[in-house]
């Protein structure tokens, strides 16, 4: 049949169309996007005021503090991932689309990462300077964020999809998702630490890369299945 013959390209065009639509929606709601980013900046800038402005102390704390703030900001931003689609019935229509649900979910996660993860990566060098990080440190920080924030979005999507139908899913979401975020935090903060000490960081980066590949392949499938249950 002609419909199945061109199924592949049309799945891809649905994928692109969904990313475009979500980016357009985020653009029209750009105020909402500022909240997690402001949170990220505020938390990091408060540390020198609250703890001590001493250079060496801030340098030792910097990787951990910036990464913890980035992780919490990513968790804050998860709320917008599926909520409005769930409420207005778009999610139902996604589930009823002949295209692979996992592919459509991946499109949503990618556009979510583009508007929440990428700004965090871009702001990180500035915050690194606040915390007296060295140039190599800032470089590694950006690299770990580049590998790590997509994992946060992908894994968070599973948690969000599972807790979508619940009234107060926020608490449960953190319980579900935080344990899975911890390896990312440990390896990333450790990589930044090591690079500031002039040590080799390949191992940590490989591990983050492996986690990223794993979550790109499995998270959309898991999130799509969870969404199906939530829509029911």
């Amino acid at each position, binding site marked *: 049949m002609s*419909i*199945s013959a061109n*199924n592949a390209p*049309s*799945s891809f*065009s*649905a994928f692109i*169309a*969904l990313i475009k*639509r979500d980016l*357009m*929606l985020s653009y*029209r*709601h750009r105020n909402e996007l500022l909240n997690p980013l402001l949170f990220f900046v505020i938390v990091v800038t408060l540390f020198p005021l609250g703890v001590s402005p001493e250079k060496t102390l801030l340098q030792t704390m910097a990787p951990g503090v910036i990464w913890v703030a980035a992780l919490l900001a990513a968790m804050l931003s998860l709320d917008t991932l599926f909520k*409005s689609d769930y*409420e*207005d*019935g*778009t999610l*139902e*229509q*996604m*589930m*009823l*689309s*002949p*295209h692979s649900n996992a592919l*459509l979910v991946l499109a949503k996660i990618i556009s979510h990462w583009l508007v929440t993860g990428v700004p965090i990566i871009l702001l990180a060098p500035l915050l690194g300077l606040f915390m007296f990080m060295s140039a190599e440190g800032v470089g590694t920080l950006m690299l770990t964020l580049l590998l790590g924030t997509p994992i946060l979005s992908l894994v968070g999507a599973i948690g969000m999809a599972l807790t979508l139908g619940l009234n107060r899913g926020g608490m449960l979401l953190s319980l579900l998702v935080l344990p899975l975020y911890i390896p990312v935090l440990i390896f990333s903060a450790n990589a930044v630490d090591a690079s500031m000490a002039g040590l080799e960081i390949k191992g940590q980066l490989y591990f983050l890369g492996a986690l990223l590949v794993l979550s790109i392949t499995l998270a959309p499938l898991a999130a799509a299945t969870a969404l199906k249950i939530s*829509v*029911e």
Partner: protein
Amino acid sequence: MTDATAGLHIKSISCTRGYRDLFTDLDFHLCPGQVLRVEGKNGSGKTSLLRIMAGLAQPLEGEVLWQGRKIQHVESDYLENLLFLGHRAAIKYELTPLENLCMAKSLHGSKAENGIEEALYQVGLFGFEDIPCGQLSAGQKRRVALAQLFLTRARCWILDEPYTSLDVVAVAMLENLFTQHINNGGMLVITSHQPVTLQAGEQYRLVLPKTELEALV
């Protein structure tokens, strides 16, 4: 209702809500060119039945067959032939009617002969295509959702209360479209609290919680 493998077969399904049975052992065929009107009081399970038929919800017992095979097994074939419009219209208020329909069209991969602008013209939204849907009236939002009916190639339409907040002209336009769809061998399942007058096809009525179909002339 002769050919056992054409169309949609609802095979002895039961559905409960909480501890309440909505309907038990519901069994019927819907063949091309047939219309099914689902009626019943509020809370009698009309929407639940429609969601089960669309594969969005699982029945407690029984199964739904498309062309003689379980819908879970022929998922993409069934979904290509299905258009389900529920209470929630899947319309984004921040997007214009044009953008909303573009998305709907690419989600369903339908290769429409007439374009989106034509569909908007048909539902009387010509001139509104660049206004965010949030600024449209309830009836106009409904019309945006219903414009999908002009874009789709799906043969089985499952519509939950399509007449909600529509004016007389729009209802007449829809009935026209339904008649055309049925005459082209389409299937239609519809719930409505308003009378539906179609001049086409075999029409059946299901009044929940009864499980017998009544033929309408």
